[in-house]
């Protein structure tokens, strides 16, 4: 018991929390933007996987340039977002199934591409990790400093993404259009807003951000690629969006919450409290469910979500 009441424990715990939360954070921010415009995407696993591989390939083939990797991931994710947008906006296909299909496709496609590009080898290529930069002053705050402010720029970008998304959604005219498209697309359309255009933009951004989130795994954390490296994190990101009530700051909290639960459960196992490990593995999900049920009814999805918008001819 005395093991967990140390400063070192908390500091390590919170740092792990941040590491586990960041890939989900990027993806969740993107999905929040997309959902606020009315497009639900269950295929976040697909974006993340694609981004993980694309980023890794980008970095490996430019001699280890990690930022190139991020750029490649951004582009590939955007293209996938465009594809999903085309399917769900123009072709008005069902959004849930499009997402499931994207996941299946991306898993196969990334495995296929990985094998072709790196050919079946027993050695796994690696990249060097992003260097970490402790932020002066902030990193010296006891406990919290080490946990939050001694990471790589990638992580700091993640932090920055939260206020940026908030500003985008609530302080810009574009954000207004996004939310209008998600709440009352017919009214938005009569007001001259291009609902299709706005949704396309959002879905592409979601793809890009989702891919960058996946790239964090291969560029900022593990620095190598294994098949199915995302292992369900895309779904956690989706959960965070809803748990965070589609609001960037609350979503950030949700991502940290998930990261914390996961980091905590691993440490509980390491400290061997005799709890069967399956229950510890369950904790992030159970805690979210409890929180979800107790916040019952106080959050509401954008009204037009999952409903394809049909521009009425005049």
């Amino acid at each position, binding site marked *: 018991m005395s093991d967990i009441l140390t400063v070192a424990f908390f500091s390590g715990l919170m740092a792990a929390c941040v590491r586990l939360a960041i890939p989900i954070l990027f993806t969740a921010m993107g999905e929040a933007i997309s959902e606020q415009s009315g497009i639900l995407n*269950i295929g976040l696993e697909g974006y993340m996987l694609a981004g993980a591989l694309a980023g890794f390939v980008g970095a490996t083939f430019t001699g280890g340039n990690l930022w190139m990797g991020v750029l490649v991931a951004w582009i590939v994710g955007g293209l996938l977002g465009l594809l999903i947008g*085309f*399917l769900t906006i123009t*072709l*008005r*296909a*069902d959004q*849930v*199934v*499009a997402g*499931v*299909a*994207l*996941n*299946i*496709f*991306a*898993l*196969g*496609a990334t*495995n*296929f591409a990985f*094998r*072709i590009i790196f050919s079946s080898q027993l050695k796994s290529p690696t990249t060097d990790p992003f260097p970490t930069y402790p932020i002066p002053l902030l990193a010296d705050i006891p406990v919290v400093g080490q946990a939050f402010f001694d990471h790589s720029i990638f992580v700091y970008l993640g932090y920055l993404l939260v206020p940026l998304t908030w500003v985008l959604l609530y302080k810009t005219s574009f954000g207004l259009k996004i939310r209008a498209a998600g709440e009352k697309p017919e009214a938005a359309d009569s007001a001259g807003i291009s609902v299709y255009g706005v949704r396309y933009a959002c879905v592409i951004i979601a793809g890009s951000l989702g891919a960058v989130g996946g790239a964090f795994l291969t560029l900022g954390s593990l620095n190598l690629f294994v098949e199915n490296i995302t292992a369900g994190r895309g*779904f956690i990101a*989706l*959960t965070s969006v*809803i*748990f965070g009530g589609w609001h960037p700051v609350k979503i950030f909290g949700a991502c940290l919450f998930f990261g914390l639960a996961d980091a905590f459960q691993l440490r509980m196992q390491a400290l061997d409290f005799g709890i*069967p490990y*399956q*229950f510890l*593995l*369950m904790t992030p*999900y*159970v805690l*979210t*469910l409890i929180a*979800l*049920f107790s916040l*019952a*009814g106080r*959050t*509401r*999805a954008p*009204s037009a979500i*999952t*409903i*394809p918008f049909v521009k*009425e*001819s005049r």
Partner: protein
Amino acid sequence: MSRLTGFLAPLIAVLAAFLVGAILILSVGKDPIVAYTALFSGAVGDVFGLQLKFGETILKMTPLLFIGLGVAFALHCRVWNIGAEGQLYLGALGSILVALQWPDASAWFVITMTILASFLGGGLWAAIPAFFKARYRVDEIISTFLLNFVGLFFISYLAHGPMRDPEGFMPQTRMISENAELPILVEGTRIHLGIAVALFCALVIYIVIRHTTWGYELQAVGANPNAARYSGISVGKNIFLALVVSGGLAGLAGMGEVQGNMGRLTDTISPGYGFTGIVVAILGRLNPIGIIVAAFFFAILLVGGDAMQGAAQISSAIIEVLQGLIVLFVIGSEILVNKSFRRELIAKLRRRAVTEEPA
């Protein structure tokens, strides 16, 4: 013309997907003709000899059909059941508990009990998110989804611990005794009672949706909950029941897998049927007959895909890509389908009633 598009559109989509797949296969130096022949003959070849292949396709189709029916049923009420995977496992739990309880009873007794128990297991697991959705409007997409993990880990715990087979070595429950094995319907294959139960459920659902008040109420709630409430329909109750029945059907899928395929409860009895079932429901356009067809074709893809891998030595990655492409192309082709189908589907999913004829 529109009748034909209803059929042609998905067919062209599938062909287009196969074409792209063929390009991929060529790119790794394999022959697409060989591959695709292997796929179909591996799944439905030799039907009349009822060899392994066709029988295995039916076997694979069974859980997909159960879950497809379940997901579609809930969707009539605009309720998304993303928790079928977890409900399958909880249904399997109900099934194994009953089966292990009565190893010597008559087969009919045990199997009837397991059907009830598995329906109950899946239904109860769905009842949790159903309650919170009906009463507190908690979004069911996330709650059903999260419960998948909780359900799976719980079953894993049971199989590793309290229910572990004392004779065995592996973390799995004891094997069911012969009386609980689902009877084989066609000799020489592994086609079991499950498919008959599933088809029966399809029939029941068809009747319920089309010809009962309850079916009408479900659809009314799905189309426009406010209007439904004003006309005296209990929205909460319908939402609750829709999701619970959906869960029960997923539970039956679990029963089929435990008693017709694996013989035990382990934490790997489902390779994702809960999610593939959603695709089946949508491709089947929420209509029991369509779902039967969709489940059958998906089973062909899955079984044939394995055969393709074995016979043509193509990596499983290409098959996954092909499956994804097929779904993507087919749902993309939906817009070309007869407009009244589409309108019907949107009407089922929209909150507001459709008020205009398309131009």
